[in-house]
């Protein structure tokens, strides 16, 4: 690593000193609460794995866990499906236009998640814009429930996930050497072949990064499923909330949280592995 050469010029003590403030902050706000959570999950008057054993045999937890992964992966896939074409379009724009469009992509970030959720209800809800229109054209017979169910959760989530997906794919697409496309064109390749054989494979690192970020973000989703999902769309984070605030079972809550952390860590590691091999395949830029 060429970049690290200047850092290694520092004496170890200086380096430690420079790292100290951040380390202290991390210890305070990340490691300490995490440690406390793990401790709480294992110690309830006495030291035991009971909470985990109970968790593993709890049908509620297992169902919620399956929900969580389904929703996270589903939301990520939908976000990829919508995000890729947008990134492709953005990459084809001249820089100034691209900046304007990017601001539009980022807009959801500056809006409160509550406001966004209510806006979605206004559009997709039972009395929302779309259903009013459907009811009007069908004479009141057609009403597609899109809120307070799985569709609602995913609609709400991609609103939040899309910018991450678009930005990481866009990064890969912009790093793609335009001369490769020109070379393919001179060799007679049409746009479809160029997309499948060149653009898509070379943007895979961005796709995988986007998927990784999306899965990570959505696995811990909490407000959106609570606001826009139905009763059967409970996610692990909501379960933790349920244990801490409804049943006041801190041990179960902690064990659930730790289990989620470990499982999502495993998933991320798995995806990271895929990403690593894609990078080795020469797609890296």
């Amino acid at each position, binding site marked *: 690593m060429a970049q690290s050469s200047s850092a290694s010029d520092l004496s170890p003590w200086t380096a430690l000193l420079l790292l100290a403030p951040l380390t202290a902050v991390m210890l305070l706000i990340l490691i300490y609460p995490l440690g406390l959570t793990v401790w709480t999950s294992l110690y309830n008057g006495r030291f035991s794995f009971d909470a985990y054993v109970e968790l593993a045999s709890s049908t509620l937890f297992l169902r919620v866990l399956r929900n969580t992964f389904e929703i996270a992966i589903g939301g990520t896939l939908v976000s990829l499906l919508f995000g890729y074409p947008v990134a492709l379009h953005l990459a084809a724009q001249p820089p100034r236009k691209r900046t304007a469009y990017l601001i539009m992509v980022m807009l959801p970030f500056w809006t409160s998640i509550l406001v966004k959720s209510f806006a979605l209800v206004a559009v997709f809800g039972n009395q929302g814009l779309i259903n009013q229109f459907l009811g009007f054209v069908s004479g009141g017979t057609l009403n597609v429930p899109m809120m307070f169910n799985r569709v609602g959760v995913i609609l709400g989530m991609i609103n939040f996930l899309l910018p991450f997906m678009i930005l990481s794919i866009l990064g890969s697409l912009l790093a793609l050497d335009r*001369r*490769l496309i*020109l070379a393919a064109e*001179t*060799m007679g*390749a049409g746009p479809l*072949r160029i997309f499948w054989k*060149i653009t898509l494979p*070379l943007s895979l690192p961005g796709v995988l990064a986007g998927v990784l970020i999306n899965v990570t973000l959505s696995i811990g989703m909490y407000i959106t499923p609570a606001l826009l999902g139905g009763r059967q769309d409970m996610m692990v984070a909501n379960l933790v909330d349920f244990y801490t605030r409804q049943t006041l079972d801190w041990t179960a809550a902690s064990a659930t949280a730790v289990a989620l952390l470990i499982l999502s860590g495993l998933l991320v590691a798995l995806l990271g592995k895929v990403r690593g091999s894609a990078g080795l395949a020469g*797609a890296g830029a």
Partner: protein
Amino acid sequence: MTASSTPAMVELQGVAKRYGEVNALHRVDLSIAKGEFVTLLGPSGSGKTTLLNLIAGMITPSSGRIVIDGRDATTLPTNRRGLGMVFQNYALMPHMTVFENIAFPLEVRRLSKAEIKRKVGEALELIQLGHVANRKPRELSGGQQQRISLARCIVYNPALILMDEPLGALDKKLREQMQLEIKRLHAELGITMLYVTHDQDEALTMSDRIVLMNGGRIEQQGTPDTLYFRPETVFSAEFIGSSNLIPGTVEIGADGAYALNTALGRFAAPAPERAIKAGERAVLLVRPENMALADAATPASVAGHIEDSILLGGVVRHFVRCADGSSLIIQELNQPGRSGAHRGEAVRAAWQPQHGRLLPPAPAG
């Protein structure tokens, strides 16, 4: 300039390209014969890439017509022009192996698997890189990568191959090796090649014909010999080879003999190819190798003193400072036992009048 007996591979008719206020290419007429090796030579920004990309179809001309292989291609999309192109940065697909890279244009042409395998094998054989078929481009050296990109081009036998400074990223030795390799492929395959470079030596080595570009225009075109021995402008003379240029005023004697009145004296010179009137400004060109150190005054000689002498292996270069402050370059063959010229020594730079060449003065600015 092209032999009219062979049909043209490419024909540019009044082709121009503007970018807003910038005239990247003024109206250019150019014809390239089938099987010819033509080099676009010129300084950076002279419009070489623009001209090449117009033929490739990557940009469309602001005006004019482009005919490729007898077919009007002015607005034809790049992928239907049937050309090959070699890029300076190789433009090999980083995610494909060498084999897959070379197979790509054949897959585009929907050849059978067996045929693709055979043709890729032959192409790799031709560039003597059969052993790297399964490697990724990044595992190869720059020279190998450029040979792969050449193979990727010739494998589908395009009628015309365009190359934009393909050797610019290679070191000198490799560059010379590749020049010969490209020449060999051209001779063996008979493909028409249009080659872009800003390196005069490369252009002289490789071309059947050199098209010298200057400021978006064709300055002069012809064989390497023509450009070297019969430059028509000061720009041509200075861009190709080194030159001694002595400015002055034209004199035409009663017998029609030309001479130039200069600050260094009056020198007889052969009649110019493009008529210059008496009394007009002109420049006398004498190539350094046509000048020699002389002891006595000859009809065409200038007095000065040696400022420096450098040895370039087989030849020696003397830099002679003249009385008016201008400087001349003399190039002589290096002989064993050559009597060395010493710095500060008073000498005469002499040449045969018939080796001089009168050129119109360089445009101001």
